[in-house]
């Protein structure tokens, strides 16, 4: 080895290394500076996308667990027109595929093709939204490379219109009415997003997703409603409303022992699956939201108040004319039909539903006490349900009562209530004079087992037990002796009822329009259920036409809950003297 040969080898190696480095440097400059923009553009195809993991919205169930509102999975077909059109002969191939797809999901393939061609640069377009699992499988089997699918959670109401007035519904931007909106805190879920890198054909690059926390599922909202009873009541009220030519109708069934609402029916009502099929006024619950002057059903509350105050009893006597001139200048009050002067007891006044008799009884107690009783019965104050859009009705202060209102409130005009408030007042009469909070929600049951939103059970003493018992006995006389008695009979059971015909104010005066109702409690000797059936502006002005509806609903309620018959006969109070 000579120094020269050594130097030669070394220099040869150095030269080679330098040459290679130069090649790399040139390539580097080429990539980073010369072709930089083009390559960056190409890199846009490898965008990071987010994939959403959905939390499940909670169900709404009835008191027995039947599902009233359900979260279901649907699918969207999503395409990237830019990628779709990369194919050779794109239009032809795409149209063929679209024809196959629309054979499954319906639609017009040429219209879809137009949509694709109009957005050639877009990376995200919907081909179809909300297809079912079967359709999804069928389209998936077509094995079309340029489709991809996204999950779309939707809401389904398997029982249609049953309790539709209470459940509410969900629009494109979220819940719009009823419990879906009002109980959103219980039902609502939270989604979680994961980001991942996507290859050019849309496939997620494995290992590139970053999973975040678990999504939050909503809780199950359990209502006090009994779906089967609700179905019957809705059906019966619909039949009634149609037969009577009414504008609206409500039916309420409430359990006496705890104030739970077993059925709250509205007519016309809404099917939450298709809420736009219902008129805007029909999408909520009139039973909660639309107060009306209740009419003669208030007379039972008046009687109870008078007895509790000790100023009257079942046999207190009055002479009731057809028309009575009010002493305080309030004008003339008359009964619903002409009759000779009648010598009535308080029981007889309820059976005849005589306004003039009640007006005379009204003088036995001062206005402020009477107003207090009405308030304790729950009138003028919204119920504990706090339903979305619930109305508190209107009960003016006693000091604001004019000469006529002073009497009119005691037979149900000059104040306004909702059907639910009347049901709650009758629940007080039925429950030995203690009014319990009206309850529609049993609770919100979370996935982890905890329960929130349970109702309050604190009652308010309205009248004494004795007063409520005596009132119920008088109402049993209405059941047995009033003109509608033949249409009210439920063999084997003692029932306490009161009818109501209330005039509807229009343009500052009262015309021929009425709201008729029948309210009742059974079994009378040991009350378990309150039923109120109301029809707004029917063709007939006689409450008797709704008596059989009340009877049918009460019969169904007693059958549903297997209530034992009364085993004793009703009282026989003197109605005249």
């Amino acid at each position: 080895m000579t120094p020269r040969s050594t130097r030669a080898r070394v220099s040869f190696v150095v030269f080679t290394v330098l040459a290679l480095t130069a090649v790399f440097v040139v390539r580097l400059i080429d990539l980073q500076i010369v072709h930089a923009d083009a390559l960056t553009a190409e890199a846009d195809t490898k965008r990071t996308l987010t994939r959403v993991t959905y939390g499940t919205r909670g169900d709404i169930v009835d008191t027995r667990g039947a599902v009233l509102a359900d979260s279901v999975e649907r699918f969207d077909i999503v395409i990237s027109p830019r990628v779709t059109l990369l194919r050779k002969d794109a239009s032809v191939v795409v149209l063929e595929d679209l024809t196959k797809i629309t054979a499954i999901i319906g639609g017009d393939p040429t219209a879809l093709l137009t949509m694709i061609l109009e957005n050639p640069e877009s990376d995200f377009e919907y081909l179809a939204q909300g297809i079912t699992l079967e359709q999804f499988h069928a389209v998936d089997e077509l094995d079309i490379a340029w489709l991809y699918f996204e999950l779309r959670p939707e809401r389904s109401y398997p029982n249609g219109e049953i309790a539709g007035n209470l459940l509410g519904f969900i629009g494109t931007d979220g819940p719009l009415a009823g419990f879906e909106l009002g109980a959103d805190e219980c039902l609502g879920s939270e989604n979680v997003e994961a980001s991942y890198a996507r290859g050019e054909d849309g496939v997620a690059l494995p290992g590139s997703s970053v999973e975040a926390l678990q999504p939050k599922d909503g809780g199950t909202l359990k209502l006090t409603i009994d779906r089967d009873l609700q179905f019957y009541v809705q059906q019966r009220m619909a039949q009634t409303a149609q037969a009577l030519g009414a504008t609206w109708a409500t039916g309420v069934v409430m359990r006496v022992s705890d104030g739970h609402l077993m059925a709250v029916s509205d007519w016309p009502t809404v099917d939450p699956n298709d809420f736009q099929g219902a008129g805007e006024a029909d999408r909520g619950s009139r039973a909660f939201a639309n107060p009306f002057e209740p009419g003669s059903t208030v007379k039972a509350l008046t009687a109870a108040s008078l007895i509790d105050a000790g100023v009257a009893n079942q046999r207190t006597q009055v002479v009731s004319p057809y028309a009575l001139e009010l002493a305080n200048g309030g004008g003339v009050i008359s009964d619903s039909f002409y009759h000779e002067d009648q010598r009535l007891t308080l029981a007889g006044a309820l059976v005849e539903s005589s306004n003039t008799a009640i007006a005379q009884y009204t003088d036995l107690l001062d206005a402020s006490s009477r107003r207090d009783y009405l308030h304790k019965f729950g009138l003028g104050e919204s119920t504990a349900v706090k339903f979305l859009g619930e109305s508190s009705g209107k009960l003016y202060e006693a000091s604001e009562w004019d000469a006529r209102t002073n009497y009119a409130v005691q037979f149900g005009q000059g104040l306004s209530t909702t059907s639910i408030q009347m049901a709650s007042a009758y629940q007080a009469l039925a429950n030995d004079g203690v009014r319990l909070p009206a309850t529609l929600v049993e609770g919100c049951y979370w996935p982890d087992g905890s329960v929130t939103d349970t109702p309050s059970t604190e009652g308010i003493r309205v009248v004494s037990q004795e007063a409520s018992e005596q009132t119920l006995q008088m109402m049993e006389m209405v059941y047995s002796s009033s003109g509608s008695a033949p249409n009210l009979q439920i063999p084997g059971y003692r029932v306490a009822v009161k009818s109501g015909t209330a005039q509807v104010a229009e343009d500052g005066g009262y015309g021929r329009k009425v709201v008729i109702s029948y309210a009742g409690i059974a079994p009378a000797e040991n009350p378990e259920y309150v039923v109120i059936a109301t029809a707004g502006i029917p063709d007939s002005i006689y409450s008797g036409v709704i008596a059989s509806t009340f009877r049918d609903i009460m019969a169904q309620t007693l059958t549903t809950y297997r209530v034992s018959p009364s085993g004793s006969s009703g009282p026989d109070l003197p109605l005249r003297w």
Partner: protein
Amino acid sequence: MSTNVAYAPPQPLQSPGQRPSHIEIVTTRAQRKARPRAFYAVVTVASMFVILAAQLLLSIVVTQGAYQIDSLQDQQKILNRSEQNLLESLALQSSSQNLAAQAAGFGMIPNATPFSLNLANGSVFRLPGSADPTGCGGKCGLVGNTLLAGMPLVSAEAAAAAQVAKATAAEATTLASAGTSSSTAPATGAPEAADNAIPAPVTR
């Protein structure tokens, strides 16, 4: 010049036939013992290869497992979806409207005289029953359900009656008889003609 030094006369060159004598450096025994054995080197390299091979195999097996897990998770997702779909279908078929319509299709009517047995004392009492004054029951669609549109009736008689009704009642104002229709406008009128044709319940 002559010297006194004795010197050997130059040896004649050896003939080419004779080999020159080599001088070898021979390793001592100690040095031989210190030499690394080839055997150990072979073992080391071989075991390195074995380890690499084992690692490769393990990695293949693990990846295989991962693919299996992925495939099972996929299956689970698909089965979950099917389950949800079936539950949804079940909820729909359990809806009160569907049950009432299917029952009516079989000619069933609500029990007019239901009795109840008090298990505590064995007494039997009669319940008021379900009144259905217009005889409409489950067939009139007074309480609609748009999801049930097109739901077929299970009973054979009802299906046959439906065919007949469909064939004859072309543009009738009566309600659809091939299934529970979504009557959100109940004012469309009277119960359908099939009311008179309810077959009597058959006891087997």
